[in-house]
């Protein structure tokens, strides 16, 4: 199904409900779908599980969702930063569950969900605290940990450009988690700088095929 084209970010995220698992793209500010996150803040959904590389910075975006106690669990690799004060406070208060995952395992678990893989053995994290309680196995003399897919109901993604069929291209290191989160969520919601006609994107250069995309919204050119 060709994606719905929402008129506003608010309309794009309107289906996100209490208790949903929401993947949010971005590494630092690059690729962070800030307008969609702001709309999620406005829409009022709570008790969210958020999958993101980080856990919010300063007083914006995901950090505000956490400040408002709308997030009950964060699955991420790097929550603690110099300006992650809202995460730090909620976590220390015991009001926010944290599942800490090495970044590559986070990425591979998201990919596995999108790719229909039931689990995989990874050497990353073997012998560490983060493998405690997980199944391990020696394969050809090396230790591996069994990791499981991370599925989500929604993904919020920022791309550079989409065609009306949902095919996406990204920009530089802002690509990061977008392509894999788009495959792992039941509904992928994407903010782009512009939406173009089918045939405007070279089929060789499409990074995310439109099959993975459910909703598009144009946010104007946020890169310049």
């Amino acid at each position, binding site marked *: 199904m060709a994606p719905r084209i929402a008129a506003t970010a608010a309309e794009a995220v309107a289906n996100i409900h209490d208790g949903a698992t929401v993947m949010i793209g971005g590494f630092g500010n690059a690729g962070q779908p800030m307008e969609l996150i702001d709309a999620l803040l406005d829409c009022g959904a709570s008790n969210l599980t958020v999958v993101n590389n980080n856990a919010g910075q300063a007083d914006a975006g995901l950090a505000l969702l956490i400040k408002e106690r709308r997030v009950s669990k964060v699955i991420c690799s790097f929550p603690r930063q110099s300006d992650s004060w809202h995460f730090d406070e909620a976590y220390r208060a015991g009001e926010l569950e944290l599942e800490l995952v090495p970044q590559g395992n986070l990425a591979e678990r998201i990919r596995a969900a999108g790719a*229909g*893989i039931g689990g995989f053995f990874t050497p990353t994290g073997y012998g560490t605290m983060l493998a405690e309680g997980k199944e391990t196995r020696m394969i050809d003399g090396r230790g591996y940990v069994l990791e499981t897919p991370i599925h989500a109901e929604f993904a919020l993604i920022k791309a550079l450009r989409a*065609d009306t069929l949902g095919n996406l291209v990204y920009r530089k290191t802002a690509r990061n988690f977008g392509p894999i989160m788009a495959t792992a969520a039941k509904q992928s919601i994407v903010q782009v700088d512009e939406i173009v006609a089918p045939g405007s994107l070279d*089929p060789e250069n499409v990074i995310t*095929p439109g099959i993975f995309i459910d909703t598009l919204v144009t946010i104007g050119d946020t890169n310049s």
Partner: protein
Amino acid sequence: MSTFTTTDAALTRDEMAKIVAVDIPAGAFVNLGIGQPTNVSNFLTSEQGVTLHTENGMLGMGPVATGDEIDGDLINAGKIPVTELPGASYFHQADSFAMMRGGHLDVCVLGAFQVSGGGDLANWHTGAPGAIPAVGGAMDLAIGAKSTWVMMGLFTKAGESKLVETLSYPVTGLGCVSRIYTESAIFDLADNKVTVRSTHGISFDELVARLPVDLHKA
């Protein structure tokens, strides 16, 4: 209210393909396998907005290429030259099969040697002694799509039903088929129950007499 229908004549291959095409939801992402099911593409309308996937690495596949359109680098899973539509995309084999295995395709239409009442599919190997096996993407297609439909003749040349209680041919996928289109009848499979949606050139009672599975009328 019964939705059961019947026609006097058995369906031709084109009639079967047309019915499958009509049943495909608007906007669906579809894989038509190789062989007979690819004929379905000839009956899809542009209003349906169906996107075709070919597992060798493409979404937005267009019709078979002819004349100057033929390009050895643009083929379908049956190795037949095809065309690309506006909005197409290319991807490598791992991404293509991740798309299938991850449940992103809406419908996959396949041929079959046998289907069981529970939806088990056999379509990759006759199991005959000395036969050289080849599987290709059959097992991935069988279990990957949200819905797997089969198009096949209902009876073997010897007159035996290919809708069976238990597969005698080697399994391609377990419990994966939800609909079977044949020249004689169309079946919906769900929860180990086989519902006959329509019969063609055969009555429901004759069908009950000839098939080794319990049948329900729609």
